[in-house]
């Protein structure tokens, strides 16, 4: 069922996300977070340095989005960001997608991600046999 017509905001995160940059970034995304049912995608492809303040900011954004019945998803994680999220045990709290487009698309479907994958596999035509 595809009933979603609300906009999805995609935001690219800065290269370094220390406490100062995190505060600035939070100030930037605050207007989107306070809307009704915000749908946000953070693109982490450019992140070279992520510290505890940055992770805390991500969690805060997610919590704010959930409070308003919205969601925050992460996309295109750089290896550095992936390592820090894994280190701080926070990667399991977020929905993480390969690309921002995938993350945006995920908002439009109602089905849980795992079920959508299963459906996709079922719908795919069988691979052509080798001649």
């Amino acid at each position: 069922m595809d009933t979603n017509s609300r906009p999805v905001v995609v935001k690219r995160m800065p290269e370094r996300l220390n406490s100062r940059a995190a505060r600035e970034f939070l100030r930037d995304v605050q207007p989107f977070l306070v809307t009704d049912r915000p749908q946000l995608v953070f693109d982490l492809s450019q992140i070279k340095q992520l510290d505890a303040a940055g992770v805390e900011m991500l969690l805060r954004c997610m919590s704010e989005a959930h409070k308003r019945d919205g969601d925050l998803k992460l996309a295109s994680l750089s290896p550095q960001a992936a390592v820090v999220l894994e280190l701080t045990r926070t990667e399991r709290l977020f929905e993480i997608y390969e690309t921002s487009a995938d993350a945006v698309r995920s908002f439009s479907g109602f089905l849980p991600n795992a079920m959508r994958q299963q459906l996709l596999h079922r719908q795919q035509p069988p691979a052509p046999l080798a001649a």
Partner: protein
Amino acid sequence: MDIRALVLVSKAVEAAADPMPVSPLAPALLEVAGKTALQRTVERLREFGIQSATVITDSDFLVSEDSEDEQGTTYQATPRERFWRAAENAFNDLAQEGAELVLLMHLGGYAEINLEKFVQFHLDQRARVTQASAPGEPLRIFCISASRRNDAASLFRSQLSRCRSECPFFEHEGYFNPLREARDLRQLAIDILTLKTETKPCGSEMRSGVWIERKAVIEKGARVLAPAFIGAFARIRSHAVVTRCSSVEHHAEIDCGSVVENSTVLPYCRVGAGLDVAHSVVGAGVLANLRRDVTVEIADRKLVGFVVAGRGQQFLSAAFELATYLPKQMWRGLFGPSQPQPRDLRTALHDTSPSLGGAAGYQTSACDTDAAEKFPSNLAVARRYGHQ
């Protein structure tokens, strides 16, 4: 027979600019399960009967000036640009002192070579220079007849890449680790802890597979699961877990609730509280994740940092924390922001939803229905998080 050893430790010949980004030290100077590859090599030389070894390094970390330890090993620090000249001079000195054979080892990697067989092979071959080789690659380990100074000089001047005369290869069949990257360092720790090497972890085996060095502190509630190594003066704080061939080197610290799994924590490194370090080598503000094959600089000292304070300073800071704890709590209690009280379901339902709050202009309840009457206030409310 007078056999001497000349051990060279440098980063100068490594192909990569920074082969081991987790530490500024040469790989042979990094502790693995309590000892460096250099220390293990010198010990091995002693076991073979070579009491006086000369170690030449271009690293100031090992030694600030020429020195000799109580077991007769001489250490010489030399600038990088004069490293090979110093090595050649040291060889000549050994020859002048009456050495008949010189074992030359350039420690990039760690090899457990059978020295007896190596020397015998050299003598049998009647060669001037013999080189050891592991399957697939020649090692930078040579046996040189001390009287053949010109051959030695040509070897040193080519940075051990070329020999003037014919150089037979001795096939090494024992353990060898090239120690080129963080992965090799981790592999060496695993091999030592699983006893695949002849060398053993330092310290005493407290339980089967758990080696703990002197003055290591394992706080109550912390768990160390075999095989694992905890170095001298290291501290494993409460509810931390060290497991799966992990090696926490001397003076390192694992803070409360952190899990160290299949990882090496280098000396003086501190892993912050509540972290999950897996398949990694943790260095000075650097973490090499082996599964992702990526090295990440971590500037945040809350995550990965240095243990810099001495014992006295640590004690003073702990005492200060203790002394100021009670006044701080009183201050917070009197003047700090008050904690929001948990509300029951009825109040929550009758309050305006935050998303519809002042900005939306709604003043009436968003959920002013009879449903609230039907549910008791202690009913658990399940929310959807993400797609779960």
